[in-house]
């Protein structure tokens, strides 16, 4: 797909989107974003992860010009999104979270409209290519209302690509999408990235971020609390610790518990159990039973997690269904 029309960008990895001190307070006083600063690298897939209501859509909407920022600035490919909005917006494509479509228009008409709106001269050959890549070409003369939900989502993607953007925002691209289409979507995103498009997607599925992203940002209650390379994040994310304050200090871990991921700390008064937070079987019940068998009593216990893990566990709980979805 011919998306980026410019020659290979100089300095891969330099920021293509630069968000500085961004804040948003909606009319009514609700503060949806608090002092968010973020650099998106050219050519990467960046996943913005966070529970519902965290402010993901608000952040994207500000960058795309749909919501006014209250504080802060955003540069898109070096252009200020407010002062130099024409140049900035011409570079950006947006696939919104909701399926907002012109029900009575044909796929082709709505695509031509999008391209024109973004200031590009007609290019039927390019639009045909986009539609073919998205398996929509056969539907080009259909009215949008006759299409399935998944097809409508593709139409929105095609519209967002109609003006050959260099930066593509996908706001929850796979929410409510079946597993098969989700995998198609992931493939398409990778193809776009290979063509040089920088992709920022939001999701509240950890699996999706894990599958797709080069880097991950986590947003909670309007605050960007972490931005990490995926690999680093996943390591931190995967582990969780249960800390037991023992009644009586242990000199050492009993031999037949040695196979468990246990550590003694605090002169033997504290027993730390490390486990995989994402696995179905934490082994905690088993651990407690076996401690009981050894007569090891504890005063209290708590799960000591990094704040990051805290968020993700909260996330997993709030979206347990999605996390358990097979194949996802």
């Amino acid at each position, binding site marked *: 797909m011919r998306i980026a029309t410019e020659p290979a960008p100089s300095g891969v990895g330099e920021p293509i989107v630069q968000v500085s001190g961004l804040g948003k307070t*909606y*009319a009514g006083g609700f503060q949806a974003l608090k002092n968010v600063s973020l650099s998106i690298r050219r050519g990467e897939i960046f996943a913005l992860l966070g529970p519902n209501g965290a402010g993901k859509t608000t952040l994207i909407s500000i960058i*795309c*010009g*749909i*919501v*006014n920022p209250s504080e802060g600035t955003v540069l898109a490919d070096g252009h200020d999104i407010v002062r130099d*909005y*024409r*140049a*900035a*917006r*011409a570079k*950006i494509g*947006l696939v*919104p979270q*909701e399926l*907002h*479509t*012109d*029900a*009575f*228009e044909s796929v082709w*008409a709505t695509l*031509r*409209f*999008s*391209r*024109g*709106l*973004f*200031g*590009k*001269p007609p290019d039927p050959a390019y639009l045909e290519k986009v539609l073919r890549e998205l398996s929509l070409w056969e539907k080009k003369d259909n009215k949008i209302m006759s299409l399935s939900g998944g097809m409508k989502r593709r139409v929105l993607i095609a*519209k967002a690509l109609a003006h050959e953007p260099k930066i593509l925002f996908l706001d929850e691209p796979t929410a409510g999408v079946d597993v098969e289409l989700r995998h198609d979507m992931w493939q398409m995103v990778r193809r776009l990235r290979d063509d040089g498009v920088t992709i920022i997607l939001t999701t509240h599925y950890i699996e999706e971020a894990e599958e797709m992203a080069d880097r991950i940002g986590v947003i909670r209650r309007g605050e960007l609390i972490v931005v990490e390379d995926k690999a680093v994040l996943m390591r931190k994310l995967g582990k969780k610790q249960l800390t037991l304050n023992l009644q009586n200090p242990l000199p050492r871990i009993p031999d037949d518990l040695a196979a468990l991921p246990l550590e003694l700390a605090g002169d033997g008064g504290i027993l730390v159990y490390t486990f995989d937070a994402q696995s179905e079987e934490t082994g905690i019940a088993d651990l407690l039973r076996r401690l009981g068998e050894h007569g090891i009593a504890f005063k209290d216990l708590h799960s000591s997690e990094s704040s990051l893990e805290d968020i993700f566990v909260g996330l997993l709980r709030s979206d347990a269904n999605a996390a358990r979805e097979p194949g996802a």
Partner: protein
Amino acid sequence: MNTHAIRAIYRFEMARTFRTITQSIASPVLSTSLYFVVFGAAIGSRMGAIDGVSYGAFIIPGLIMLSLLNESISNASFGIYLPKWSGTIYELLSAPVSYLEALIGYVGAAATKSVMLGVLILITARLFVPYHIEHPLWMLGFLLLTAVTFSLFGFIIGIWADDFQKLQVIPLMVVTPLTFLGGAFYSIGMLPPVWQKIALFNPVVYLISGFRWSFFGQSDVNVGISLAATLGFLALCLGIVWWIFRTGYKLKS
């Protein structure tokens, strides 16, 4: 200037018009024709001429204005309300399009459609009543000016409205009564003196009067005042639109 965007919006809006041709063109032409049949051909023949103009011909400018105002407002308000309602407005807001360009696209398409309608009604009227147009260029000028002004007004209503009822209420409850009372079917001079004074507060009086002058060379109010009043309303609408766009009123949070 993003001329591709203006063209895209204009084409998109015109396509919507032609797709719904029955309700957007045919039905207003038909209903206006019924007025000509009833008031022009049937009742008109029993009515005396007004200021030397046969009654059937006398009502032509008023009837065209009635359609022009209603259609301009409803076209333009619907044109911008629809994307707001369906959510597709996100695309317009995220596009490298200035407010002026969006305005030209939407208002231009709405005004084009009402002018087409006005001309069609004028041609249809010919089937029922003979008439002569004294100042054809002025007539076209008033037609265009009114279409643009009230499309602009409709655009404002479309942005302001947040449900379908609000969209209908101004054309139905304000514009239509003002048009009927504004001399579409009579000369203001036929009213009792007190009502003549009151009528001068009705802005539609100036529109109809000026338009009628372009047909018959005579009017209730001086044509210069009519023109000034119309231009004044245009300026007022432009001011409001400028404010809407500057503040993002009902468009951006």
